[in-house]
């Protein structure tokens, strides 16, 4: 997927975040969301490794070895930020003090089940903070490509990969669609400006509840 598509996903998610919220961004497309959050909304980013107030990457030569983001890269702390240890960091996460977590996914299904940490036998990087974040955050938003690299749907009827957390996903945003997970199922609320409802249905492995006139993004 090209950068335009990735930015489209990140831009749409950034619009969804309410002012003054505390948000955790995962690795990959979720990280891009930071570039589209308006500076005047009072939104602060939580970094699982121990601080709130994650800023942009430092200028070369100004890196602080004691301040890195969740991917281990040099980071900066914004005015109003604060630092804590990992126990406090995950108390914030699990204790429902985190408003949004934006995560990538391998599969998401009709019930809001999420699989994003392993493909047994092929890919076992570990769990990291993904299980705590998806269980603990008030809102779980998935930012991902609509299909996998084999062209198969990642939004499926029932996850086949090991779950990260059952029934925790609230929102799925891809380069094609903006889908809300509701008690009745997956509601297709918006489609991308260059696609059609038919194309979204064709590339989705789950039943979609389609708004009469889906919005565009």
């Amino acid at each position, binding site marked *: 997927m090209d950068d335009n598509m990735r930015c489209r996903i990140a831009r749409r998610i950034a619009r969804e975040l309410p002012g003054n919220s505390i948000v955790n961004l995962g690795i990959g497309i979720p990280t891009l969301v930071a570039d589209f959050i308006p500076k005047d909304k009072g939104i602060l980013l939580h970094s699982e490794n121990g601080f709130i107030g994650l800023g942009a990457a430092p200028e070369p030569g100004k890196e602080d070895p004691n301040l890195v983001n969740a991917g281990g890269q040099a980071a900066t702390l914004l005015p109003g930020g604060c*630092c804590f*240890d*990992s126990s406090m960091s995950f108390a914030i996460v699990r204790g429902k003090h985190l408003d949004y977590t934006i995560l990538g996914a391998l599969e998401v299904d009709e019930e809001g089940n999420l699989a994003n940490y392993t493909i047994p036998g092929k890919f*076992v990087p570990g*769990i*990291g903070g993904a299980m705590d974040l998806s*269980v603990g955050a008030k809102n779980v938003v998935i930012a991902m490509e609509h299909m996998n690299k084999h062209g198969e749907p990642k939004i499926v009827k029932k996850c086949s990969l090991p779950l990260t957390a059952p*029934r925790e996903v609230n929102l799925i945003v891809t380069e094609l669609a903006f889908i809300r997970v509701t008690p009745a199922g997956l509601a297709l609320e918006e489609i991308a400006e260059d696609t059609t409802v038919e194309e979204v249905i064709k590339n989705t492995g789950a039943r979609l509840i389609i708004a009469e006139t889906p919005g565009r993004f």
Partner: protein
Amino acid sequence: MKPVRTPQQAVENIKDGASIMVGGFISCGRPTAVLEAILEKGIKNLTIISNDTSKEETGIVRLVMEGRVSKFIGSYIGMNRIMSEKMKSGEVEIELVPQGTFVERIRAAGAGLGGVLTPTGLGTAIERGKETLTIDGRRFLLEKPLKADFAIVKANKADKYGNAFASGSSKNFNVAMSMAADYVILEAEEIVEPGELDPEKVTFPCVFIDMLVPVSKGGNRNG
């Protein structure tokens, strides 16, 4: 006052088969000098408890490459392909724990608690073989305390009693691990006299620390 020793002296009592907690998140707040002394001394059959193995082929990964580690407990091994190869071959037993559960199990051990009741892991492979409890109508997974024979932790500044300050995101697992091992070795970039460290800026209180090892500043070169 706590003994101030070299990395070589610090490992004198670490024997084959020991369990060792290692603080740090990737290379941040990661103690490396004592791990190098463990490597030099040839100590083996170790259980290493650390959030991740970091990126470079040094520290924990080097111990793994040399065949010194029989078990690794942590939340993430994806930084380095060597760990997943050792996991597949069965050479190193790897126990993966969700990161929040990992730190809270360690904190529980250090705080005298019998375990942690967490919603994290319910309905996933993590739940397998574990007890669940329903408290006020909500289900929780019972996770047991995690302790070790030794902990190696890192701080920017410590006084000779072992009160220590770790800046920014370098506190990470160092704080909980300092509470949860029988013997705790603190690598400090600067060691000062009592009274020279602002008591309001103590990240970990002296009670947890057994030995101080002075190390050079910005000692993250070894990942």
